[in-house]
């Protein structure tokens, strides 16, 4: 699971008012290089919850993202490289996503989050 996916996932347990962002429990992180697409990053940038990305990247051991950003930074290659690395190259291979309100764990095995709810959670 990449941090892009983490940035889009939330806890949707019945009764939870704010299930975003999910806390990350890290067991194993892997890095996989992938070609950078500036068009894709520019498209995604306004849709990203930035603070959640910065915090998630830090949890995964990457602390290079600036806290404060604006769209003019998309012209900088240095910024694009860091954004790309945090968003698409860090994978949570084993671990869990944890609901910020209830503490419910959603396991991540072999990089695939299991977001299914139990019957009494829907």
């Amino acid at each position, binding site marked *: *699971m990449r941090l892009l996916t983490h940035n*889009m996932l939330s806890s949707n347990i019945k009764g939870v008012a704010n299930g975003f962002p999910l806390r990350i429990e890290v067991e194993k992180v892997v890095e996989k290089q992938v070609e950078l*697409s500036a068009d894709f990053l520019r498209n995604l940038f306004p*849709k990203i919850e930035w603070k959640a990305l910065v915090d998630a990247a830090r949890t995964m051991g990457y602390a290079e993202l600036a806290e404060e950003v604006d769209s003019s930074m998309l012209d900088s290659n240095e910024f694009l490289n860091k954004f790309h690395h945090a968003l698409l190259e860090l994978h949570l291979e084993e671990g869990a996503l944890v609901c910020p309100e209830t503490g419910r764990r959603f396991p991540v095995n072999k990089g695939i*989050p299991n*977001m299914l709810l*139990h*019957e*009494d959670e829907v």
Partner: protein
Amino acid sequence: MKYLIRLAQAYETFRRPEIDALAALAGLEVHVLHYHHDSPFCIVDLPSNDAAKAFISRAILCMSIYEWWGSGGDYEALHASVRTNAFAALAKYRDASFKFAVDSFRGKRTMSKQRELIESFAWFDWQGPIIMHDAEVQMVIFEDWDRGPTSAKGPPDPKMLHLGRWLGSGLRDAILTYDLKKRKYISRTSMDAELSLVTALLTLAAPGKIIYDPFVGTGSFAVTAAFFGSKVFGSDIDARSIRGVPDCNLLTNFVQYQSQHNFLDSFISDLVHTPLRRAQILDGIICDPPYGIREGPKTLGYREGKTAAPVTIDDIPAHMRDGWVPPKRPYGFDDMMQDVLDFGFDMLVDHGRLSVWMPTANDEDSDLPVPSHPGLAIISICTQHFNKWSRRLLTYRRLPHSEIDLAQINVVRSERAKGSANDVNRFRKKYFEGFRT
């Protein structure tokens, strides 16, 4: 300027939506001047040759595009039309290498007759060499024949003729590349390559975009959307289909097509209880929901009257273990379609596209209505016919807020919450729920 598109004579109702999608993807306006569902020759207006080449570069059902030089009901009329429309072009190619070919739709011409037809254009007075491969100028004589009575030999002459200069061809080779017979990981609900490719086109899959399939299964649409350059991710309620087995899973399909750089992630979830945060993130949504012919619509939960407390195995709740198969209850098809549309409204960017397949009976009286949503405009309805039923590909465009009556959306949502919206459809609803009480 006029251009001739040579279409595949198949999936007719998908062809005009593809023409519109190709123009939208290339940022062009296209005007269809002449189109008939029973003909593979379509004449359109496009701004320039470069525009025509950009237009055809992603095409699946549009095979090739030609500069239009003339049309006529017989050869005399065709020659006259070429003389009027393309006279200036003749001198331009006087010394270029060239070749001529004959493309007879539903007709047959012997080699000697083809030669005679080609030689009738000798008045072009071209001096360049005739070469069969990569000639600078490639002319095609198009013949459109009527379907004759099955008992007789067919009509003596074609009903319409065109002459065109080849400019470019589309991506029909991809149909072979993505052939299901050669794909490693498929299931009984995998969609065939040609329609998967066209579906991705109608969703406007292209580089820089993010596209999501909420019923991803073995990834029929995900791989074709990735083929067109978009980044894709998907989810499924069935953990087994998401995970596959070590050397045969969703990821290995992308590896097979060397497009793993366009595959983002997959996760296990239910569309009705989607974990995606509701925001206008997605450029496209593409899906073939389970509709009960090969896979039944299901959502999380038990059939009414049954409940269960969480079970623990080795101190880990069973429902959080890998390989947990959740209890699923049958789920009304109309409800599911409305959930898909409402999800699309929440998640798509303005003008983002939702392409969704749904079944319909062939008997017109029992046709399912096209589901609607106040925040989505229907773009096209394409039909694939089977023996006793057919299925439709519905494509919607997400309306920007300025064009939406938000009060109407709240009305639709509160009615759905009350469960009254589908009562008019009780029989069909029950049919799709397997007549449960």
